[in-house]
């Protein structure tokens, strides 16, 4: 389920970094509030735990085996906030040191496995095992939570990959990133998880949670915290993410004179007067001229010199 770099367009990666930024902020603040200084080592060790249990292959009848993702166990045991942070740390370590999942795709991977998976597992487990639940209801609740969680994460991954040929292709229609459309990517991700990996995750999670409860080690960092902000946040995301991904047309606020006229019914006089007054040193990166390639190279050279100058000035100011 770890999406490597090169599978998602940079625009999609940016969207998911944007989505995860408030989730990380919210989760770190909530964890700090509920756990205090214990939060840092707890999240790090929760992440290390997930990393290690992913090393074990869980045996299933028929001589085959599969490994756990671990997000559901973390969501149920540590609570959603600490689980978001711990899973993000695991994914960060895997991306940086082991090449398992991309650095640019880190935001998308975190959305699937550090947000969707533990939060949905937590919510389902809370609903099924609410009140004075017995051992069987807890076992069943954990299994159902893990099955739903891993399948939701797989579905999200399938949708993200399947959208790529729609949103990132050449003028001839050739896909620039993951080449499979939704009708192939979604079943390819969903079916193995519905039939095999979901079952492995469900069984393994239920057994681990049962042992955890038997040993009396239930932390659930978010127990005292209200889930309302998270649910509202997730609800808004669910509504906005597909729109953002498939949105075509001019970015908000970058309208031209004609588009603004169509939108407002009139063109503001300032826009009428000043649009096009300053065309830049190399307008449209030099696309208008016949020496397009050379101008592009010069633009890039100019940009890199400017960036180095900014870094130099910043480092000088920082020293003072």
């Amino acid at each position: 389920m770890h999406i490597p770099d090169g599978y998602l367009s940079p625009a999609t990666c940016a969207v998911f970094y944007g989505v995860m930024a408030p989730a990380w902020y919210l989760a770190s603040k909530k964890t700090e509030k509920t756990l205090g200084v214990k939060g840092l080592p707890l999240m790090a060790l929760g992440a290390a735990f997930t990393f290690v249990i992913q090393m074990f292959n869980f045996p299933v009848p028929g001589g085959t085996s599969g490994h756990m993702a671990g997000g559901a166990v973390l969501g149920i045991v540590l609570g959603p906030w600490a689980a978001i942070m711990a899973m993000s740390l695991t994914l960060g370590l895997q991306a940086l040191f082991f090449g398992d999942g991309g650095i640019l795709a880190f935001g998308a991977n975190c959305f699937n496995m550090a947000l969707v998976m533990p939060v949905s597992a937590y919510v389902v487990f809370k609903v099924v095992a609410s009140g004075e639940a017995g051992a069987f209801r807890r076992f069943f609740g954990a299994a159902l939570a893990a099955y739903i969680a891993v399948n939701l994460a797989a579905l999200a991954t399938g949708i993200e990959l399947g959208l790529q040929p729609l949103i990132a292709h050449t003028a001839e229609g050739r896909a620039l990133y993951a080449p499979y459309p939704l009708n192939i990517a979604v079943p390819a991700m969903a079916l193995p998880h519905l039939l095999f990996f979901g079952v492995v995750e469900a069984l393994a999670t239920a057994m681990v949670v049962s042992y955890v409860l038997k040993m009396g080690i239930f932390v659930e960092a978010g127990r005292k915290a209200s889930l309302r902000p998270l649910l509202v946040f997730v609800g808004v995301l669910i509504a906005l993410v597909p729109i953002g991904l498939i949105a075509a047309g001019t970015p908000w606020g970058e309208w031209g004179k004609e588009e603004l006229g169509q939108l407002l019914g009139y063109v503001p006089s300032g826009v009428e007067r000043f649009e096009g007054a300053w065309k830049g040193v190399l307008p449209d990166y030099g696309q208008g001229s016949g020496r397009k390639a050379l101008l592009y190279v010069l633009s890039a050279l100019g940009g890199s010199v400017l960036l180095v100058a900014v870094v130099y000035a910043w480092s000088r100011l920082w020293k003072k």
Partner: protein
Amino acid sequence: MEKMTLPDWMKEAPTAVCPASSGKERKGFLDRSLRNFASVLKRAFASGKTKDGPMQNLEPRAKLAGFFLLILAAALFESWIFILALLVMTVCLSAMTKAGAAPLLVRALPAIVFTAVMAAPAVFSFVTPGAPLAGVGGLTITAEGVSTALFFVLRVSAIAALAALLVLTTAEADFFRGLGRLLPGFFSAALFFTFKYCLILVKTAEGAALARKSRTIDSRGVKEAQRWFASRAAFILKKSLNTAEEVSMAMVSRGFEGRVATAPAGPLGFAEYLWLGASSFFFFLSFGF
């Protein structure tokens, strides 16, 4: 004096009564998965000792920022020539910096092979319609399909090679120092903690597996293995939480109040500005090609 002789049973070749002492490789799920993962993990952790070279001596924050720009450029380029140039440049850099092309290939190969396998069906007309090139078992390979799949594999190869070169030329301590100056201190400190505790927990997992192996005469079936897995996972979680408690108490006793402070960054030299300039040049170039 009575002659001492060994009993017959001691002269017989030992039968494999205990898998741990038999010398034979058991093909169980635990041996397979744990040993493979633990060795990969230890190799990655041992990579803190990097060979000395020009890339290795770059200031970590500048090096990380430069690599990020190059990875972003590789993801943005629409021209295969530029992506290929980036890949060739990465391989050349690995040779120049004494990281070596072979270790680079070893690190990048899994992602490349996985992508090649995944991209293979894209060559057929049912995924990528276009001009027919050849037929295989009733399926048509299209020119557009072949170019789409090759382009996809090339892009992933370039990015995987860049990420591998970053790890190969950066010592563990430098990596976290660099991250600490680019990311909020809390995240880099938590990542560093995770990195360190992974090794401790892996040792615990390996110890548990070895203990089970030395106590087991014969395989007891899937149910027993599942139960063992669940109990050990819960045990590792318990150990994690206990360690977290102890670590937090140790931190508090040393004056930790919840804020992670990072040491002030050192000045950037000519090499760092050159590296940033070159990587940002590729980044800006990627907007046009």
